[in-house]
């Protein structure tokens, strides 16, 4: 992929994350902090489909943004053909890994498999 395409995605995911994380924080303000971490309340969040979908979206956006950011840091840390290839593929793999693991939690909880 062109570097400019990657960076458009990087900036785009950051902007979208600002909006969604703002909603996420506002939702948290509906109850006080201690209550929001109660077992039943946490489960209720995941069972409320629109909210669960939003959490999934934040997971995807920030995984893309975060792992691309990590790729950038690592590319600047050290140079070399093999190293740079390993960094790029490694970051994409880690990104899919994290999205898969997070999605598994969201989907299982949403379906009541707790």
């Amino acid at each position, binding site marked *: 992929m*062109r*570097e*400019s395409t*990657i*960076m*458009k995605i990087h*900036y785009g995911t950051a902007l979208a994350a600002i909006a969604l994380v703002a909603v996420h924080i506002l939702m948290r303000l509906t109850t006080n902090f201690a209550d929001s971490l109660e077992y039943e309340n946490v489960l209720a969040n995941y069972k409320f489909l629109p909210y669960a979908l939003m959490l999934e979206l934040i997971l995807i956006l920030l995984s893309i943004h975060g792992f691309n950011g990590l790729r*950038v840091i690592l*590319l*600047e*840390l050290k*140079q070399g053909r093999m190293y*740079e290839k390993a960094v790029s593929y490694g970051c994409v793999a880690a990104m899919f890994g994290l999205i898969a693991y997070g999605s598994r939690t969201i989907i299982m909880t949403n379906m009541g498999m707790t």
Partner: protein
Amino acid sequence: MAQVSIEDQSGETTLITLRIARYNPQKDDSKSFMEFEVPAQKWTTVLEAILDVKKNFDHSVAVRYSCRQATCGSCGMIINGKPRLACFTKISELNSNVVTVEPMNNFPIIRDLAVKFERLFDTHHKIKPFLIRDDTELETDAKEFLQSPEELEQYIQFANCIKCGLCNSACPTMAMDSSFVGPQALAQAYRYVADSRDKGKNSRLKIIDDSHGIWRCHFAGSCSQVCPKGVDPAMGIQFLRGYLLGFRS
């Protein structure tokens, strides 16, 4: 109106301590400093003080210079911690009796204050620093490519670059990323992309749109702070980014 007497103009001579970094990569393990007491007047430049040391104390100090008037771009060095041109920096403006000169950062040292410019010349060459178009002004009967003052204004500031490398020396990404194209070359890429006579925009943008290209600039802005010619490479880089993000065409 302020009266300026002859004494004021001639200025007093003060003795300052000039600390010169000495390093020969073929012999020395690390950089050391030699100190010299040199006379300085109001207008004495750091380069003049270094040449004074060469003439009167130690001829072996390695320093590169030529024009002595901020035009050739040879005498870049770190002066009291900041990348500057030695011929364009007066000792009096440093407000210190101790002046420390070191070779530029992010350049391999040849000896003492002289550094290798290969990387700068390579990256400068890479962005194609010439007008790209099929026709030429050089054919007989061909007219020169005309430009309006407004078109000239788009890039003329960036054409003032003297390739001194101070911006590359100040850039934090240059310090880490050995493949980074650097602020000097990026500013020159903008200089040609913004030139109405040039037709090579797409090929140039392609060259800098690389994993070690323009996107590795993280807006530190130190390049523009140290540029002695007011080029403002950081601004050129943001303008270039505009083309790649679709804000400019």
